[in-house]
């Protein structure tokens, strides 16, 4: 990539007859945005949401299962923490390349999702387990003493009380994945990373670069707010302002 190239040197092909705003690479060209919203930016945004939702969904399912296991059997925690911790520290570009190198995956969405799921695990596992362990012991004791079975204690007492910690984990993981998923464009032509990549290749085309980046940021903020609202709706007892 030639990030340092002067705008005049590379003549980008914007397909057709570009406005002067685009030719001169002004900060924001509204005309270009209008013309390319439905063909470029909207599909990229939609794919980005899809990539994120799938990664968070699968990641949460795996992390929840691991956390429940670790909650019951203490010895599970350590190995899971180590493995998910190692995955978390692998540089994302390197992880994508490794997965692409595996014949079964290659340059596919599967490669992207495996990597993204991998990055959610540490956060979701840790937060879910902390939430379950944070349930006051006297509450569990009282639940047992009243005749709730182990399963009833888990689903009616421990999980609801762990919800704030679980949602906190989901928020961090979601924002992280929205940011990370832009790198998927190095493998597949999907997500908000694709217009960013194209803008970089087109002599740092500012409008497309800023628009795609802004959409990613807006998506992250919106997702965070939605999850926060969800947590409030689900945990009416956990209000500080009472």
């Amino acid at each position, binding site marked *: 990539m030639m990030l340092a190239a002067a705008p005049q040197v590379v003549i980008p092909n914007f397909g057709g007859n570009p406005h002067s705003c685009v030719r001169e690479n002004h900060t924001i060209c509204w005309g270009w945005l209008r013309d390319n919203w439905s063909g470029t930016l909207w599909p990229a945004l939609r794919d980005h949401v899809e990539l994120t939702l799938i990664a968070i969904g699968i990641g949460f399912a795996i992390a929840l299962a691991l956390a429940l296991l670790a909650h019951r059997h203490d010895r599970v925690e350590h190995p899971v923490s180590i493995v998910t911790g190692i995955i978390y520290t692998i540089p994302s570009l390197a992880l994508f390349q490794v997965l692409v190198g595996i014949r079964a995956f290659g340059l596919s969405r599967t490669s992207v999702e495996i990597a993204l799921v991998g990055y959610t695990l540490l956060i979701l596992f840790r937060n879910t387990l902390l939430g379950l362990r944070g349930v006051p012991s006297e509450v569990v004791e009282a639940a*047992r003493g009243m005749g*709730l079975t182990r399963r009833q204690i888990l689903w009616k007492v421990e999980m609801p009380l762990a919800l704030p910690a679980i949602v906190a984990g989901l928020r961090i993981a979601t924002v992280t994945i929205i940011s990370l998923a832009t790198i998927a464009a190095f493998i597949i032509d999907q997500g908000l990373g694709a217009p960013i990549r194209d803008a970089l290749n087109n002599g740092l085309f500012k409008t497309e670069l800023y628009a795609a980046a802004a959409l990613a940021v807006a998506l992250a903020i919106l997702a965070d707010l939605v999850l926060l609202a969800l947590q409030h709706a689900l945990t009416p007892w956990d209000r500080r302002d009472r």
Partner: protein
Amino acid sequence: MRPYTAQPEGPSPFPSAGGPQAAAELELRNVSKRYPGAASAAIEDLSLTVPAGEICVLVGPSGCGKTTAMRLINRMIDPSGGDILLEGRSVLNRDPSELRREIGYVIQQVGLFPHLTVADNIATVPKLLGWKRARTASRVDELLELVGLREVQGIAGRYPAQLSGGQRQRVGVARALAADPPLMLMDEPFGAIDPINRERLQDEFLRLQEQVRKTVVFVTHDIDEAIKMGDRIAILREGGHLAQYDTPQDLLTHPADEFVAQFVGADRGLKRLGLTRLDEMQLEQVNGGPVPKDRIAASTTARDALSRMLTAGGGALAVVDDDDRVQGIVTVDLVTELLRDPSA
């Protein structure tokens, strides 16, 4: 469940819940508990019977196994030997969860569910038992009344974090009583409450017990609380040995050994006086003679009366009933007599 009839005219915070309800006899038969690796047993050959409808207080120094003994009853832990019978039936071959739904359980930290409202907390066991919605709702209402919380505006919809310590404890008791269990286990239920409120909660519970007449096993480390609450007191010593099992009166009059005597305290005579109210004593009759001008209520204990007389220089007091009518005269000698008489 009995239909509930409101008695709005009653001044008592616990209007009648409908008379005495079923209670079960509890018997511990040679129960022992040893933990693997532990040098000595936590409970050793413990046998005692709690008659239906009575409060049995397990009391003793820390490490005596009183909480362990209580937790064996609802199988929070399983005994190493012996048997536990509820209404003549062993609890050991029963499903622990089903058994616990028939036994009210109150712990010191209460353990209310923070994510459920007061009403939902109280409804826990009825819901587990699959009660119909309407039945559960009316039972919740009845219990709020029973523990004196119904007049608190909007209490049913509040979360535990919005309650005071005393209110939480009352909800805890209501929750334990919800499915009308024949047996209640209470582990230092008022231990975390300040002394003034603790006394109120104790009085309230005794009044409540007069109505519901449950069999109650009550654990405390406080001998004064034991004497106040117990119909019978089991004093345990290190290793879960039963040192003495008696009524408060007998325990204070005839401590079985040095350990018990020491545990009940050197002031056990005074404590005994605390068990007798003036209206239960043979008072000196007035018979036209002079009436002391200092008056004292007939519901006062002999202990408090003695304290008043000593403070006032040893003079006699006129004992009066609720309507201020003189019932008789109490003197220091009369109170001393009470201690001398072994049948008192």
